[in-house]
């Protein structure tokens, strides 16, 4: 399931729903990304721009890709769009598999994808002004790990 949400999301409730009816899956990995205070800069919120249509299609392709790479029994990706306040969740991912390696790796892969390869644009709103956020170098090298593996 893939959801772009304009409203606040509740990771615990999403995990509860995800765990229902997973009789064959022993392993569930999940990830929550929260908007955090950025050190000294008093962050108030993120504004998340996206390209309706293109963004959903792009995430759907990554989800299909993860199912090709790992034997997943279920996955969910929920991503906020619009204004997300400090402390709120920006993203929730959960993956279920028989064994934990598949669940962990698929969850990790999907997060790397969302950071650098999904059509989202993040602007940080803080008291000292607004700024567009670029992925960190580490985000690009994280994403590159999965491409190397294909060789």
């Amino acid at each position: 399931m893939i959801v772009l949400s304009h409203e606040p999301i509740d990771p615990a409730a999403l995990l509860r729903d995800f765990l229902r009816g997973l009789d064959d899956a022993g392993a569930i990995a999940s990830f929550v990304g929260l908007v955090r205070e950025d050190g000294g800069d008093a962050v108030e919120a993120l504004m998340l721009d996206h390209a309706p249509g293109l963004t959903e299609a792009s995430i759907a392709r990554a989800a299909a890709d993860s199912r090709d790479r790992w034997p997943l029994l279920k996955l969910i990706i929920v991503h906020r769009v619009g204004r997300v306040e400090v402390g709120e969740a920006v993203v929730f991912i959960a993956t279920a598999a028989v064994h934990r390696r598949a669940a962990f790796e698929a969850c990790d892969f999907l997060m790397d994808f969302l950071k650098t390869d999904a059509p989202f644009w993040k602007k940080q709103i803080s008291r000292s002004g607004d700024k567009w956020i670029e992925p960190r170098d580490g985000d690009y090298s994280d994403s590159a790990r999965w491409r190397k593996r294909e060789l």
Partner: protein
Amino acid sequence: MVRVVFYGKLADLMGRERDATLDLAAETVAAVIRRLAADEAAFAAALASMRVRYAVNDVMAAPETTVKTGDEIAVLPPFSGG
């Protein structure tokens, strides 16, 4: 006429969308964007400073892709989600 839609920091600069005229029945994405940049120094500078990608009608597309009247070009600065 094609619609050009801007995202992220390019939307701050150009607004969400603009209509652009075509000089020919079919032109490349690159040609349409070049013409917009010729009129707007800030947009030209932004394009030069980052790796921009394009989509045509919601499908990722190379700058050499041709567009015709009624098509929509999305102008995509580097992604940052999650």
